[in-house]
């Protein structure tokens, strides 16, 4: 492991930014401080990954409020342009960007969510070109956690907050310094650019992570859910849901999208895809008016079965990484940790 003092982290970031599009976690305002003057200081409303610029207020304490999924899967993304005149339709593909990207400071939970996204977009039948293009040129520096938010529960999902083996470089929190360990050939290459700033960290041990407040072990949940499709639990849970998309938009593993278009002029149509949420009424509503999931009960049930059961069947893993974003932000606390608890407590009649 090689290390650099936290106070000198800007040297490293500057060096990386000169070779890559570098995305770093940036501090956000809290509700309390959503002060109108903050935007002038470069603060965004929620902590999130942003393109590195000198002087941005970087955020290292805990995970970001918004997940880095939008770097691979932007909320709205141009797909192609169609020009439709008289009877003709011409289709122009979007040129793909090629500059390599570094995603700096991704936490273990989000690293696991990137694995989830890979399973969806790069496996099972087709490869998604747009996702693939971004994913393939991204190098990931994972950052181990020494503290956590109240809502964090990655350990319940069998994720080690200190280690993300799938990352190219693992950064460890050594207290007053960051330690860098390459984990792939790509990681080795990128570290070469900053090697001059690093010194050897013999026998340094990362700070341990405090025990988490939420403990919802997953053991048996998936198996139990197989028999719970018609369980009264869903009727009991769903009235609380207000049907917003906060959980799905914050969730780092939610991948659903809508394909729609904008028309800058009568003849020009820009096809784009944008995040969609299974909690919205029109999500499954067909043109004729038939809706397979017409009420909140079905939608809530589908969301949690999807996270905990369907994706396990389809993609081989549970699609919750314990990042705690829904726990922190669900307006009515109908979030996955509570639901897992309720599932475990539910009685199943054979």
């Amino acid at each position, binding site marked *: 492991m090689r290390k650099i003092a936290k106070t000198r982290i800007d040297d490293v970031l500057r060096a990386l930014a000169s070779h890559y599009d570098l995305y770093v976690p940036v501090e956000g305002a*809290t509700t*309390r401080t959503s002060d*109108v003057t903050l935007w002038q200081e470069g603060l965004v409303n929620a902590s999130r990954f942003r393109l590195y610029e000198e002087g941005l207020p970087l955020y290292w304490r805990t995970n970001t409020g918004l997940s880095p999924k939008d770097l691979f899967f932007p909320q709205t993304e141009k797909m192609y342009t169609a020009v439709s005149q008289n009877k003709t339709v011409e289709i122009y593909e979007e040129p793909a960007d090629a500059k390599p990207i570094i995603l700096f400071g991704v936490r273990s939970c989000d690293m696991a969510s990137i694995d989830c996204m890979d399973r969806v977009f790069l496996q099972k039948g087709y490869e998604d070109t747009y996702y693939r293009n971004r994913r393939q040129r991204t190098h990931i520096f994972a950052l181990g956690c020494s503290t956590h938010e109240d809502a964090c529960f990655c350990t319940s999902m069998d994720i080690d907050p200190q280690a993300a083996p799938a990352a190219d470089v693992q950064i460890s929190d050594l207290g007053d310094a960051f330690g860098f360990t390459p984990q792939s050939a790509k990681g080795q290459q990128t570290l070469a650019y900053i090697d001059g700033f690093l010194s050897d960290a013999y026998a340094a041990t990362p700070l341990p992570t405090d025990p988490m407040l939420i403990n919802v072990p997953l053991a048996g949940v998936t198996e139990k859910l197989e028999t719970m499709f018609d369980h009264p639990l869903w009727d009991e849970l769903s009235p609380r849901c207000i049907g*917003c998309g*906060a959980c799905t938009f914050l969730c780092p593993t939610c991948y659903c999208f809508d394909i729609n278009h904008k028309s800058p002029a009568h003849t020009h149509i820009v096809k784009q895809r944008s*995040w969609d*949420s299974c909690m919205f009424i029109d999500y499954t509503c067909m043109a004729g008016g038939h809706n397979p999931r017409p009420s909140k009960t079905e939608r809530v049930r589908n969301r949690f079965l999807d996270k905990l059961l369907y994706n396990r069947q389809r993609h081989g893993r549970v699609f919750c990484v314990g990042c705690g974003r829904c726990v922190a932000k669900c307006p009515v*606390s109908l979030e996955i940790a509570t639901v897992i608890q309720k599932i475990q407590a539910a009685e199943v009649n054979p």
Partner: protein
Amino acid sequence: MNENVIQVSGKSEISQIMREIARDLLQQKTVSLVIGWEKGILPNKSAPAFITQSHDTDKLVFDEYCYHNLTKYLLQRKGSGLKTAIFVKGCDSRSLVGLVQDNQVPREDICIIGISCPGLMEERNTVIPAKKCETCYTSIPVEYDFLIDCPDTKTGDDEPGGSFAHRELSKVENMTLDQRDTYWQTMFQGCIRCYACRNVCPVCSCKECCFDLTSPDWVGKGNNTSDNSFYHLVRAMHVAGRCVSCGECERVCPINLPVMLLNSKLSLSIEELFDEPPASMNLDDTATLSQFKPEDPEEFM
């Protein structure tokens, strides 16, 4: 009404009284559902609770994290003819009055259990009062069938003509037009359009919202700053004159947008322009934009 006012000596007793009232109502079958709060997964989290069985009433709590304005849930019972009991804080009671005014829920189907509110705390910092409490006009419910009266009651500094809202607004009003534009565009750009602010709003009672329509599609599914601005401005206009400043929209925003600034701007403008009391303080009121006076200010000659 007086026999229905229950005095408690402190806020720690509120939960116990809540449980007793709820148990009685369910046991006597006066109502089939009680909507209140229960503890969430973390000590600083509470959550809405739906209680139908009298033995479940022990789940009910009231603490400084019971932010949720539960009155929106009454719309789920709309048209069912079933009786519902609901717990309301001062601010919540106003939105309930608003729903009755808008003919969304029949007053006689609702058993309102008011709690004179001792004030809420920020979730992340347990000593600072919640921001939504800063715009509080009344901690004592304006309409109730039962009232749990707590001596610790605390109101924000926002009497009509509220100073907190004024202070916040002046920060924007002191900017130039172009700065304001930049400020709001920066804010709206961040919006992820999860619609939490709309869905939680107790006065957004339309069955089908104009933002959900596909024809005409007022806002596209895609996220862009122009559509986001459209959404926030139109939403502010749609609740103008009915917004009760409960602050739920701002509380639930996952990216902390200052949504209430727009609402406060309109609420305070209404006070200045039309000399009307804050919205929904009284069952007999009519919403500001649903009425007029011939002698309203004239700026358009």
